């Protein structure tokens, strides 16, 4: 249930920043992602071709990185919520009785993500708003997620809207 208390708690976290090490993007992960989507672009599958195009290895399809829900092994099954998602992955708040929905994404691609890149995510809660929907009160969160390589070079920015209801 969305309450004004929850809204106030979230509003207090505007500007909250997190830095998370995501680990290394592997060539196999890229090839599997491309396969799942139905992408046959050799940039994602063929390291020789990618090298000829000036990359060190295969590169990831542009929207792959923000699509990965969990970069680690995930929680043990008993700890997942009824809907199968991980608990409390939103700003450390107890939101187990709230439905989380993606409300849209705006991605800026600064540089391609090459296989072998070690990624860091810098995530910031930039805004929060309340909206009255047919089904009741809704909270709209705006995050700015910056993905960088080991040297701190920005690779991708994802402005993501998340709806709670």
């Amino acid at each position: 249930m969305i309450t004004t208390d929850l809204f106030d708690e979230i509003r207090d976290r505007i500007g909250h920043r997190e830095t998370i090490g995501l680990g290394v993007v592997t060539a196999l992960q890229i090839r599997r992602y491309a396969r799942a989507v139905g992408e046959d672009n050799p940039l994602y599958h063929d390291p020789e071709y990618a090298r000829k195009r000036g990359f060190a290895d295969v590169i990831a399809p542009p929207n792959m990185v923000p699509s990965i829900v969990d970069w680690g092994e995930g929680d043990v099954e008993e700890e997942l919520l009824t809907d199968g998602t991980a608990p409390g992955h939103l700003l450390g708040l107890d939101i187990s009785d709230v439905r989380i929905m993606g409300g849209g994404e705006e991605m800026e691609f600064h540089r391609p993500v090459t296989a072998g890149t070690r990624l860091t995510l810098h995530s910031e809660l930039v805004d929060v708003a309340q909206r009255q929907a047919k089904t009741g009160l809704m909270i709209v969160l705006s995050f700015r997620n910056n993905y960088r390589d080991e040297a701190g070079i920005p690779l991708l920015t994802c402005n993501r809207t998340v709806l709670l209801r």
Partner: protein
Amino acid sequence: MRREFSQIGIGDEIEEQSHRPTQVQLFRYSAVTWNSHRIHYDRPYAEKEGYPDVLVQSHLHGAFLTKLCTDWMGEDGRLVRLALRVRRFAVPGDVLVCRGTVVDKAVVDGEGRVTLRLEEVRSDGEVCAPGEAVVAFPLAET
């Protein structure tokens, strides 16, 4: 395939692509993105939430629009920006047609930039995901 900035005109329509997601595709997409949300693989659960079947992941809608742009732009293009919103759900068996139109052209920082208006349309005509993209091209040497 190469595409020249000078040959692109406002109003041009880009070659459409269609996808017919299957349960296997949704499973593999959830697996590779480590997405354990039951709405994408557990039909009785999805029905309990009021949907006719498991749902296409919002990022898979995004992947279809990404592919539309990157296939169109060819070797010389660079996808700079992609924005999208998933407005309607889709389930396995739906045919999703991705379309795009050139709505703007400009030279920015010494490269050509093309703005595309995008949409992914469901079999019944409903727009599942509207979007917008910017693709950069090198300018021809003079």
